[in-house]
């Protein structure tokens, strides 16, 4: 076993750990609500991928912006979105981030620079590129981070978006969260060549690989690259290797995966690895348990609140469509 210890400020690592625990607890509460029918739509869990969200977003300012994917709960929480509003959104309830009109795959929170999850694979890439292009046009000093999965690298907008970011020298960090699966298919079975990093490099974009289950490594690399972007650099590309410990959706048991593969990956759970690092730095196990329990309690409370909350007013099905030629609502007979 190689030495995986790092030099990191214990307080910073503890902060990262708290974010990861809150994401894990949110996902577990969402999974439970999905399985018992309280959440109706598809829920794509990021269990096992929390270190990427926490490590990258710890380096972002409130004015920085991100886009994410259908598997984006972790990125939202790490960027600062209120989990209470997120859970209301998953439940399709009033007070959700999008008023219950978007659901899990369309969470957005513009107040914290979260420009939207997306239900279409790779669709967030051009949007993030455009947000960075907009920042440059408006002369605004911010970094845009674009999260996507390894399945996205086989769609055209990946090539187009990276090329665009390169020619316009945009202030954007692409983060390919490589969890090894494109829906229920192993990505390597449908991907020619050496993959994401090489594709980025072929377009002249400086690209890096990082152990995406090592939150300290992710944090360190993201810190370096966001710093270089703030100094006028960019775009940059990161492939963060991680693993989707659950199925494609909450109701997918992932039976197409080898059991040994999955159990090996649970041994690499970023949560455990972060805890080991914290204990090496002298934190007591009891303190970590307290953090874990607090996260579980927080997310149990938001799920209970979401369960009790009312649905949106029916007229909301007709609002915020368009100003010119807007639909007209009248109650069904």
């Amino acid at each position, binding site marked *: 076993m190689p030495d995986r210890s790092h030099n990191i400020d214990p307080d910073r690592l503890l902060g990262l750990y708290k974010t990861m625990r809150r994401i894990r607890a949110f996902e577990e509460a969402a999974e439970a609500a999905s399985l018992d029918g309280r959440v109706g739509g598809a829920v794509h869990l990021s269990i096992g991928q929390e270190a990427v969200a926490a490590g990258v977003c710890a380096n972002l300012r409130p004015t920085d912006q991100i886009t994410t994917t259908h598997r984006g709960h972790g990125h939202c929480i790490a960027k600062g979105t209120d989990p209470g509003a997120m859970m209301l959104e998953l439940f399709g309830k009033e007070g959700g981030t999008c008023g219950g009109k978007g659901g899990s795959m*369309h969470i957005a929170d513009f107040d914290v620079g979260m420009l939207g999850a997306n239900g279409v694979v790779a669709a967030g890439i051009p949007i993030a590129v455009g947000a960075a292009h907009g920042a440059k046009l408006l002369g605004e000093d911010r970094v845009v981070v674009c999260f996507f999965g390894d399945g996205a690298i086989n769609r055209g907008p990946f090539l*187009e978006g990276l090329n665009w970011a390169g020619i316009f020298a945009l202030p954007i960090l692409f983060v390919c969260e490589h969890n090894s699966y494109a829906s229920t298919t192993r990505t390597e079975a449908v991907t020619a060549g050496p993959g994401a990093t090489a594709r980025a490099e072929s377009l002249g974009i400086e690209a890096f690989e990082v152990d995406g289950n090592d939150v300290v490594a992710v944090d360190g690399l993201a810190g370096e690259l966001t710093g270089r972007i703030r100094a006028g650099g960019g775009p940059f590309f990161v492939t963060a290797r991680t693993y989707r410990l659950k199925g494609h959706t909450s109701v997918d048991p992932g039976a197409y995966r080898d059991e040994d593969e999955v159990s090996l990956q649970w041994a690499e759970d970023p949560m455990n690895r972060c805890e080991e690092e914290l204990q090496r730095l002298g934190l007591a196990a009891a303190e970590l348990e307290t953090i874990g329990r607090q996260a579980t309690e927080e997310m149990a409370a938001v799920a209970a609140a979401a369960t009790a909350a009312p649905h949106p007013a029916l007229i909301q099905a007709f609002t915020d469509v368009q100003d010119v030629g807007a639909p007209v609502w009248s109650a069904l007979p």
Partner: protein
Amino acid sequence: MSSLSYLAAATRAVAEEMRRDDRVWALGEDLGRGGVFGQYRGLVDEFGDARIADTPISEATIMGAAVGAALVGTRPIVEMRFADFALCAVDEMVNQAAKARFMFGGQARVPLVIRQPSGMWRSSAAQHSQSLEAWYTHIPGLVVAAPATPADNLGLLKAAVRCDDPVIYIEHKDLWALEGEVPDDGEDVLVPLGRARLARAGDDITVVTWSKMVGVAEQAAELAAAQGIAMEVIDLRTLWPWDQEAVFGSVVKTGRLLVTHEAVQVGGFGAEVAATVAEDLSDSLKAPVRRLGAPRTPISYAKPLEDQLRITPERIAAVAAEMLGD
């Protein structure tokens, strides 16, 4: 008033809106050289290459980046070059631009103009000639405009740039050279979205159309007049929202409606206008509503074959005569 071409009117609209609002910019292929039809000629000299942005041939990202840039506060004018090429960006138009405001619960707006040069022009064949405006009228969140005259290409384009909704803006390639009177200055230049124009008054039959077919219908009205039929021609100008009040008012007066368009008749926007009138105005109708659009076949290259698909003044006048019982 002064005379401008349909093309020059659009150039003027973009220039005026870019002078008025620093957040407006245009992006697309070849814009620095004026665009493929010359409709951006000279603009890069005044506004620079950041605001008249030359892009790669990446329609999905031209459109998607415009969505992202609109979400963060700019107002992009997206040049799709040919309406046919915009099909490479349908996810970005339909799933992203049209839905972001609604899906995100009203947190964000996507103020975009998506210019789609359309229609048959110089034997351009099946992938450079289509009229696909009806598709976009089907998508909640989108506004669809299709000007027929230089004055409207000035005023509607300016209104589209000022609109906070994504606007699909259909310009007919065969109209670029059309000359017409346009207002010189001032706010009366603006043409409100959703308002039809009475192109020609008449009491016997209402012909509803848009884009290049307005001129064709006006020629048909001359032919009809020679047969003693007074044809009213309504230029819809905006397809979504369409001006029901103007169409209904005319049909109540004439009792007859013919909707004609260059696009394929099956599933064309004429079906929507015809069905709405048939549902709501059946008591006013003296004859069944008729449609006249293209047959459902790809557009040919060879001129005589292409002409098989063309709606002509003679064909419109003939249908009108049938509807008058001749």
